[in-house]
């Protein structure tokens, strides 16, 4: 059974039609890269999956694990296992990373009637994850993304991904604004995450990221639809030709 099934979705944002009949199926164990020019609807797709307020599905359906999730609240989707790595992670002053991560983990455990992670084990895990992502463990005490550099914010998203272990990870231009070292750290994190039971949707503007995270499928999004699909060689072709020939 498919993990994610987006069926002929049209969607609008601020009265503007952005997605115009998009289809996408992701099975467990698969990594799908979504590429496309600016304004093609890549981020809209990510926000539709996570249920961001203001993004409205006008027709079609989004199914996760066989359930139509169109009416689900964002936190309910998170509980079910959808994770969005934000393009622009927000700052939440005064709320420490540690506090935030524990609250996320506990909320998810509670919703799924699982036992809460004990505090000591959690702290140990968070510290070791931080280290593996080249983040100073001190940063766990700081406010969520407060005063973080762009690279730190993105690595923080990956840390959350690894800690929360969702079923589907949607990475919205996680590579943007990263230098090559940070990019490798992030890619290594995603590779560590991927396994036969989960899926990854990788949204990116550049082929560069796909050198480090090798996708099973590459889709080209243009004007709200997937106009071409293929394997990783499609990404290389796009790199050479640019996006102009698509429209």
């Amino acid at each position, binding site marked *: 059974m498919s993990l994610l099934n987006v069926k002929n979705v049209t969607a609008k944002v601020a009265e503007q039609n952005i997605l115009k009949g998009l289809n996408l199926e992701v099975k467990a164990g698969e990594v799908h890269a979504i590429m496309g020019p600016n304004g093609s609807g890549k981020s809209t797709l990510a926000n539709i999956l*996570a*249920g961001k*307020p203001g993004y409205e599905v006008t027709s079609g359906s989004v199914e996760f694990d066989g359930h139509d999730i169109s009416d689900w*609240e964002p*936190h309910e*989707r998170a509980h079910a296992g959808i994770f969005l790595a934000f393009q622009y992670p927000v700052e*939440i002053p*005064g709320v420490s990373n540690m506090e935030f991560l524990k609250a996320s983990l506990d909320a998810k455990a509670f919703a799924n009637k699982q036992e809460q992670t004990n505090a000591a084990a959690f702290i140990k895990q968070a510290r070791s994850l931080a280290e593996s992502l080249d983040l100073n463990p001190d940063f766990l005490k700081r406010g969520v993304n407060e005063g973080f550099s762009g690279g730190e914010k993105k690595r923080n998203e990956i840390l959350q991904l690894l800690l929360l272990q969702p079923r589907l990870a949607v990475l919205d231009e996680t590579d943007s604004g990263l230098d090559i070292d940070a990019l490798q750290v992030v890619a290594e994190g995603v590779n560590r995450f991927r396994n036969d039971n989960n899926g990854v949707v990788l949204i990116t503007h550049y082929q560069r990221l796909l050198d480090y995270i090798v996708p099973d499928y590459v889709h080209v999004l243009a004007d709200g639809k997937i106009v071409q699909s293929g394997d990783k060689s499609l990404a290389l072709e796009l790199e050479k030709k640019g996006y102009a020939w698509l429209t």
Partner: protein
Amino acid sequence: MSHSVDDLVKSNAEYQAGFISNIESDTIPPGLDESVVRFISAKKGEPQWLTEWRLEAYTKWREMTAPEWAHVHFPPVDFESISYYSAPKDMSDGPKSLAEVDPELLRTYEKLGIPLHEQEALAGVIQSRPNVAVDAVFDSVSIATTFKDKLAEAGVVFCPISEAVHSHPELVQKYLGSVVPKGDNFYAALNSAVFSDGSFVYIPKGVRCPMELSTYFRINERNTGQFERTLIIADEGSHVSYLEGCTAPMRDENQLHAAVVELVALGDAQIKYSTVQNWYPGDENGKGGIYNFVTKRGLCAGARSKISWTQVETGSAITWKYPSVVLRGDHSVGEFYSVALTNNRQQADTGTKMIHMGKDTRSTIISKGISTGRSENSYRGLVRISPTASGARNFTQCDSLLIGDTCGAHTFPYIENSNTQAIVEHEATTSKVSEDQLFACQQRGIDPEKAVSMIVNGFCKEVFKELPMEFAVEAGKLLEVSLEGAVG
């Protein structure tokens, strides 16, 4: 689909301390004249000087008018409709031992989580406040003070002020009204005339008070005002941390609470005064609730003394309160940390005054205001640097958080500097709980209600960390409860 911030702001807070206790009371008829003042004084068996002191205050009060400068709106208070003295019936002859206290009263405090039985308190049965001595004030009288003996060993005096008048007359006479004179302002004058009870603390020279002291105020009786008076004296080199909590039943009419708190810190002494104020705020339409018109002031009388106010204000229909510090001693330090949350129709006009007189005096003001519903939340502050205060230094940070666009957040910071060797800095910002923050939390599985509360708690962190541990937890929870209502 998803909540927007606006959707979250509705309905009224769930006020958990709103029950009424069924206690028979002696309550005098409403109205105020000289005979009422004399009655209260006689009831307490006060010495002549105090009766006269009260009468002088009453005369001053008669000539004064209620202040109108605060950014709050309410119909004028009818001072003739208030009863100025109310005491649980079997207490009217003064406090007795705990064993004789009406069990209903004890149950009231149990319900509020305030342990009055020392054994239970020590065992932490009722809640985890094992090392706090409590003075419980019910309407007009103090009904019990715990741990008196243990404190006495250290030489600390902690008792109802009505008792201190008799047991420590010289201290009371010397310091009562020395920080807040009886004619200081309209409500302070009223309090000076009719104050019923409150706590008295004296920490002797060089003593570090062995436990946290606390007073718990409860208004129960209908149509009564509460006018307690607290006096804390920290002698040279002593330290004390004092906590204050307040609740009242849910009633449709407004009730007046006009307290006076005076703190005196002599040389090298330190007083830390923390308040969690949770008076009944009224319902979602602004009906009922406490008018909290309070004068709190500390005097750093000696060199290197320090007074620190921390307040978490979530209750009351109207709050009018400016815990202040007069920095007279050289190198003395004043601090004010405040969280004020208003919801529904609540109005708060609160802040502080830092009056720098001594050389190299320092003050810090951190104020966090949160407004939701249709409430009005104002910070009002005065930093005054007198010509004598060379080298004085003040830093003020005033942040407002707005939730919804029907509330108001205001900042009125007065800076009056008459010494060019002083440095004063004031900063203020406003922000909101952004839809993006809310979505980011939700995306990680945190529901919107919890998310708002987490964000607001984060906003208040700088103040919460100043509270004693047990209180910090309580304050966080209280904020959550107050917001829980707000986020429906």
